């Protein structure tokens, strides 16, 4: 009956005590296991996301700044940024991808699957997303994925070619394949008295991956084509004799095509430098905005989960140490007599301490192993819920971009999917090792106080004092 065997006898024969320990360590172990695996999942997700995502910037007209400047100088006229200047900014070494995009809403009398417009109940609208970069930044950044066909060619974006990439749903709904020709109507032909039709050849079919919900049905086409369609529609208005030159100007102004910009930077650290560089090229009332870009947006919920679980982890460890120290000391008080006997038999104090440690550690090993699995499973459920709540709360106070901006597409709700993909709770080696390490460190710290208590025990007092 050496100290280890005595410990096992203590565990097996003092079942009430063993059960209490088992339950307490199991419960606390679940919390610790949960916190550990959540923290690791968060770390993992942060790494995956930061690797995957680059910051999204865009150049925007800053109305506040403009009115401030206007107060000082009433003569100030708002200038547009020329496409050449945009190209110059886009060529910056800080920029990974650059594009600018026109938007045009058209209707179709032959296609199904368009959006309904609340003003024209029967209408069937489609939204064009203009591109200048034939390779499609959306594709590069994995907002979409090509299902079949190809992207545009350099030629197609330079010349006036009526080519389009359509979403898979629309293609399926209308039995479209690569090479199919689809027809949209835009503007009004004064000569025919009908809407003016445009035929587009489908060169590619895509599927939205991680894009803002409202834009999953956009049709990609070269900016040039969209501008042409818009200009034609505007010019057509002139043919109406009832419209004055003044009205015409206001119509053209209202229905003018304009571009929003998108700069994907190489590195979030480059942002300030990029801002400065851009400021030198554009009027003062233009600013580079980096709205809550994907990474930042996803970081926030991850970070808050990380903070909560860190707190929980510390609290659980402290609670475990306190409860266990107290319990072991209490149980030891009950067993003063036994400890006194060992000491009177000349047992070394460290072996008595060893017996206590083994008694606790064996029970802890069982409880910790059990809680490793349950805690992991539990934390999966809880943290995914936390994540979802957090993302919702986050979306409530979103976005510096208006839906018309190209960059808006990059802060879509679909990033939640990206996060969910990156965020997985799993029982990997690190979790297991870390958890056992924390568990056993906790057990060791918990037996310190009781062991101190043992070293203070005097066998003479226990065995000969008092009752004798």
């Amino acid at each position, binding site marked *: *009956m*050496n100290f280890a*065997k*005595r410990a096992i*006898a*203590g565990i097996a*024969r*003092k079942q009430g005590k063993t059960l209490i320990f088992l339950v307490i360590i199991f419960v606390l172990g679940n919390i610790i296991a949960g916190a550990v695996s959540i923290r690791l999942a968060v770390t993992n997700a942060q790494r995956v996301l930061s690797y995957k995502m680059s910051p999204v910037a865009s150049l925007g007209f800053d109305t506040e700044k403009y009115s401030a400047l206007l107060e000082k100088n009433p003569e100030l006229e708002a200038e547009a940024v020329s496409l050449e200047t945009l190209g110059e900014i886009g060529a910056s070494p800080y920029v990974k991808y650059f594009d600018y995009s026109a938007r045009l809403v058209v209707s179709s009398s032959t296609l199904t699957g368009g959006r309904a417009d609340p003003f024209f109940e029967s209408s069937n609208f489609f939204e064009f997303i203009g591109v200048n970069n034939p390779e499609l930044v959306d594709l590069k950044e994995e907002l979409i994925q090509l299902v079949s066909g190809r992207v545009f060619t350099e030629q197609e974006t330079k010349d006036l070619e009526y080519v389009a990439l359509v979403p898979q749903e629309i293609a399926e709904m209308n039995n479209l394949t690569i090479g199919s020709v689809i027809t949209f109507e835009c503007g009004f032909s004064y000569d025919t008295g009908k809407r003016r039709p445009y035929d587009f050849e489908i060169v590619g079919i895509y599927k939205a991956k991680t894009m803002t919900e409202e834009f999953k049905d956009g049709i990609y086409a070269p900016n040039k084509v969209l501008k042409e369609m818009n200009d034609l529609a505007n010019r057509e208005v002139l043919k109406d004799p009832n419209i004055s030159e003044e009205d015409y100007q206001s119509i053209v102004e209202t229905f003018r095509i304009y571009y929003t910009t998108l700069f994907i930077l190489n590195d979030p650290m480059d942002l300030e430098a990029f801002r400065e560089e851009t400021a030198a090229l554009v009027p003062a009332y233009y600013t580079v905005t980096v709205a809550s870009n994907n990474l930042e947006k996803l970081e926030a919920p991850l970070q808050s989960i990380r903070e909560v679980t860190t707190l929980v982890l510390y609290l659980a460890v402290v609670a475990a140490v306190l409860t266990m120290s107290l319990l072991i000391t209490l149980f030891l008080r009950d067993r003063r*007599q*036994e400890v*006194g*006997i*060992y*000491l*009177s*038999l*000349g*047992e*070394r*104090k460290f072996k008595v301490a060893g017996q206590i440690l083994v008694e606790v550690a064996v029970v802890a090993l069982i409880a910790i192993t059990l809680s490793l699995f349950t805690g992991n499973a539990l934390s999966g459920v809880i943290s995914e819920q936390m994540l979802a709540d957090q993302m919702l709360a986050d979306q409530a106070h979103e976005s510096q971009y208006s839906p018309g901006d190209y960059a808006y597409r990059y802060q879509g709700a679909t990033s939640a999917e990206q996060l969910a993909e990156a965020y997985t709770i799993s029982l990997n080696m690190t979790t297991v090792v870390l958890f056992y390490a924390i568990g056993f460190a906790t057990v060791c710290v918990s037996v310190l106080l009781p062991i101190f208590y043992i070293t203070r025990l005097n*066998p*003479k007092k226990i*065995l*000969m004092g008092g*009752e*004798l």
Partner: protein
Amino acid sequence: MSLVTVSEVNYFYADGDSRRYILKDISCEFERGKLYAILGESGSGKTTFLSLLAALDKPKSGKVLYETQDISSIGFEKFRRNKIGIVFQAYNLIPYMTAAENIKVAMSITDNKLPKDINEVAYNLLDYIGLDKAKADRTVNKLSGGEQQRVAIARALATNVDVVLADEPTGNLDEDMENEIIAILQKLAHEHNKCVIVVTHSTQIANQADTVFKLRKGKLEPYER
């Protein structure tokens, strides 16, 4: 030749600022093969004296020698582990273990050379002292007082020590049982050549002992029957 020698031992308990001397300049010798009884009235300091012999406490001055060595230089823990066995009035067995296990606990603690099969030794020892196999495998809190005290004596012997110290070993037992325990202690001294020192106020034990001392007013005096 003396096995345990007590040399000019003093012991006091602090009573506030003053000292209450319980043992004053006590010197005596104990030999192998003899049963000693130390008598004394309640409160005379018998237990205190035994605790010094048992290395559970140290004298305020003076020495306790084992053979020729001061027990404090042997180390109290080591001395208890390897040189002595103690029997208490309250038995002091580990309640949730069996009789045999209680004995094996002591055997696993000592550094003394023991036979290989400690299991067999434990059962033989218990048998020798009057507990059969069935009782040896019972948890000790299901044994009678006399049986528990036998287990305690067996435990004191199991580690192959030369000195057995007992504090009122029969204090909780009836007369028949007392006689049986005394017979065992006698056998230990006379047949097994142990030095057995019993602290008691039982005159029954004193009558059977080879040498009797009386503790009175802090002095240990030879006792004439």
